């Protein structure tokens, strides 16, 4: 079954392929995904949000090992999912790959990597985006 029209995914390509966030021109805070306005500076930040590319460097804040996977992810279980603190400030939820699932730890240094995320059924689009791998 194909669930979604393509534009829903196409419009998120900059964020998901290249980690494009944005920065408030007033307080310099960085957001990912990009915010329409800065929640701290609010109206002062309107029209002052600038896109920035994030380094993809960060560390694991917390994680889980997913054993019962959702639709479109069944073949991947068991897989780790983590919240990662990026060096620029924002936190992000993503899979950890390229390591033994037992080696995932809080505080582990990681780097983003471009991967296939899921497929929309047999005939739908293939979705790509970021996962994170350990920094050796």
């Amino acid at each position, binding site marked *: 079954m194909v669930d979604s029209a393509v534009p829903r995914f196409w419009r*998120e390509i900059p964020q998901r392929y290249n980690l494009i966030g944005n920065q408030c021109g007033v307080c310099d805070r960085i957001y990912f*995904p990009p915010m329409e306005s800065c929640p701290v500076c609010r109206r002062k930040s309107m029209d002052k949000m600038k896109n920035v590319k994030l380094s993809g460097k960060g560390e694991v*804040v*917390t*994680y*889980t*090992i*997913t*054993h*019962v*996977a*959702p*639709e479109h*992810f069944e073949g*991947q279980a068991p*897989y780790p*999912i*983590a*919240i990662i603190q990026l060096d620029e400030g924002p*936190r*992000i*939820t*993503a*899979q950890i790959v390229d390591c033994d699932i037992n080696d995932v730890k*809080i505080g582990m240094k990681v780097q983003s990597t471009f991967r296939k*995320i*899921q497929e929309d059924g047999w005939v739908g689009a293939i*979705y790509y*985006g*970021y*996962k994170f791998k350990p920094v050796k």
Partner: protein
Amino acid sequence: MRDVAVIGLGITKFGELWDKSFRQLIAEAGSKAILDAGISGKEIDALYVGSMSAGRFIGQEHVGALVADCAGFSHTHIPAVRVESACASGGLAIRQGFLTVASGMNDIVVVGGVEKMTDVVGSEATNTLATAADQEWEAFFGATFPGLYAMIATRHMYEYGTTREHLAQVAVKNHANGALNPNAQFQREISIENVLNAIMVSYPLSILDCSPVSDGATAVILCAADKAKKYTDKPVKIIGSGQASDTLALHGRKDICTLEATVHAAKTAYKQANIQPKDIDVAEVHDCFTIAEILAIEDLGFVKKGEGGKAIDKKITTLDGEIPVNTSGGLKAKGHPVGATGVAQVAEIVLQLRGEADKRQVDGAKIGLTHNIGGSGASCIIHILEAM
């Protein structure tokens, strides 16, 4: 604002109720509540109903009108409102009904909560529950709903030394309470070993750390407090109502181990009720996963941050403990038909404050609290109730 009281309640059995439809469940709960309150249909000014996702669970939206219709109110043409706040839909329906009576707009309202989750296959029920999380920035990347709470648990274990045994004891306690509740989905006790050895859903949460997929409905009747004694000898007053929101995604929160929505909603409700956490005699908290009850007792101020696990160990929250939590069995054992849950929590506290909770009665309970969470903590609704 004027005072508001609960004057009646109706509860269906919770569980996999294959012979009951969405319509039958909510009509049954509503009828029982109306009979319990001893009101006539004509006295009802409005209807509020909590439902998280009838659109996905039974392919039916327009739930406000549907519920009025199937409960027999089509001829009175009462305003009927469906309320949605994910797993906190029921609690929010209570709050919306409460606000309209408190404002003087209505004198008597029916507040229902209902979910029919077993008309879809299990995987679709799980997908639907995941819509309470951030679809674009959590679920898209493979995070599941249990996975989000599992990540809270992992961090809580890391920061405070909470163990899987602590988590397991929440399930053990709530199953023991559920065994005393004739409407509970699971009326049997389990052991710590059962929880630890059960199939892993998302480490560190096994399937017995998770609340089930359930069908069920509950309804309560709210009435202006000055008119309540006309209908019942045992009205229960809502003395505090708090609601708060937070980031939809878990990763947006500064402290993974604190649900700020709970902290803020609790502050509002305690202030309105003019009480402290220590004044609460009995509480129904949102234990969609075992870790959620540990967070709840911390964020509600029953114990200090980080001591939730140890508090469970010390049996502070058991039926005969200092502050009994989830006497109904909680979401874990009573069942979690999501839209019904927040209303069912209020119904359990009303039973406790009326002294009608049978084998699970907390002796001398005067003040009770309900705590209903939406998503991984993006919504929280808290009510404090007192026997009049």
